[in-house]
């Protein structure tokens, strides 16, 4: 079978002043279409690097990334990216932001308008169509960013800690919304987070990564039925299990930072 995303023995090293940083080492990961996968790990573990490699923003040093069977040669609208910093174009209104990808594709003005209207309705953004991003809250901005990606109808959504900068309530409502859209539209989602709870709440499958070199530490399926209850015993059993895995990586990350400070 052809996977939506097939990552095969990918390694990536960043040159640094003291020692080269092995961001990714020999990562292999196969994601079937329609699966919701969370990459979980402390900051600096290479999960964003892996996402950027799939997105085509950076190339791997070795190994291959196949998307629906073809190698990734650069960024493209078949893999829509949602950034933590929203990355909305501030000089465009909400409607213009959402329509940008469609206009780039050469769709006519009227068709763009119709599709944008439908998406704004879907994400409860209609009344903000003519506002500029600066006039919106963080949660609203991220909804616009999601609408912008849905507009180009990417079969794959890449999400780089998209809710990391939001308050807890907004974050929960956007998580619900994302699950609803995912169930409705059948997208493949690769979602980077450092929140254990978020990964359990969302994912079909959680890939825990190690801190430097970035490797797959554990790849586990989340079998809990949705909607998931964060207060349930199963949820918490899983949370404890993941917590143990992530904490040891986090302490290695902190030891590394302390070492860097003393070395300076």
């Amino acid at each position, binding site marked *: 079978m052809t996977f939506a995303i097939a990552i095969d023995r990918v390694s990536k090293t960043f040159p640094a002043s003291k020692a080269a940083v092995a961001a990714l080492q020999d990562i292999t990961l196969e994601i079937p279409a329609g699966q919701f996968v969370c990459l979980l790990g402390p900051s600096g573990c290479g999960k964003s690097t892996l996402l950027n490699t799939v997105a085509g923003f950076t190339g791997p040093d070795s190994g291959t990334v196949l998307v629906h069977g073809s190698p990734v040669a650069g960024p493209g609208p078949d893999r829509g990216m949602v950034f933590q910093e929203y990355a909305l174009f501030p000089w465009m209104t909400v409607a213009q932001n959402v329509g940008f990808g469609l206009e*780039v594709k050469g769709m006519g003005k009227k068709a763009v308008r119709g599709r944008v209207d439908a998406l704004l309705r879907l994400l409860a953004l209609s009344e903000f169509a003519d506002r500029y991003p600066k006039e919106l809250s963080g949660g609203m901005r991220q909804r616009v960013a999601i609408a912008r990606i849905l507009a180009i109808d990417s079969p794959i959504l890449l999400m780089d800690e998209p809710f990391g900068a939001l308050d807890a309530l907004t974050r929960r409502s956007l998580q619900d919304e994302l699950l609803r859209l995912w169930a409705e539209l059948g997208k493949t989602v690769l979602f980077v987070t450092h929140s254990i709870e978020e990964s359990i709440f969302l994912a079909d499958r959680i890939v825990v990564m190690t801190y430097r070199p970035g490797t797959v530490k554990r790849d586990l399926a989340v079998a809990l039925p949705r909607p998931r209850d964060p207060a349930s015993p199963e949820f918490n059993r899983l949370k404890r299990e993941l917590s143990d895995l992530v904490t040891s990586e986090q302490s290695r990350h902190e030891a590394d930072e302390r070492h860097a400070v003393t070395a300076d």
Partner: protein
Amino acid sequence: MRSWRRSLQGLPLIFLVLALWEGVCLLGWVNPKVLPAPHAVATRWWEYLAPPQPYDPDAGSRLDWLLSGELVQDAAGSLYRVLAGFVVGAALAVPLGLLMGASERAYRLCNPLLQILRPIPPIAYIPLSILWFGLGNAPAIFLIAIGAFFPVLMNTVAGVRAVDGIFLRAARNLGAGRATIFRRVMLPAAMPYILTGMRVGIGTAFIVVIVAEMIAVNNGLGFRILEAREYFWSDKIIAGMLSIGLIGLAIDQAMSRINTHLLRWHRGLDQ
């Protein structure tokens, strides 16, 4: 309008300065040839502004008559040169700046030459400009264009270089090609810098026009205050200077309005 009311708070100081000035003149502490009293300047200013002939319906429309004063003609001449020079300078600076900002190779090629030319004040080009363009508007517009060119260029380069990489990544991710990214992402993202450069550039243009008019042409505000000096008309010199100040202020305000409108997405972005 709050900003209008706020600038009214500066009125008392203006009146105080005028009163002190008038007082000094009234007491006879200064020679009126050297420093004429404010009321003398005001009278002269009015003469400078007012139409020279009484209104004659056969000679032309009432508007033409109202605008026939010497000051109006001078201001129009100066403004024409400022705008023509500014448009020439900015029309060269913006494309070059975009190119230098977007292409490292173009930057490395052009930057050394431009950095040598940049510190040369436009005034230093006066002898050459007369040699090349003779007298009249052409050398003045040349000098003004040089004055406007560098601020616009430097700000455009800085603006393109400061474009946040995340916008470029987002645009590429959405399928935009190079030309689209340039036109719809880099250009608007750099716009705040470009407009700042234009505001500085038009200010420089206004400084240069006064100097240029003292040399190459026989009308305009700069020419007029130099002419007044020949006749020892201090009151007219000051009237001309204040006219320059007020017109400069008006241009700057207009630029600021245009900026605010074009950058309505940008105001308070960092809050």
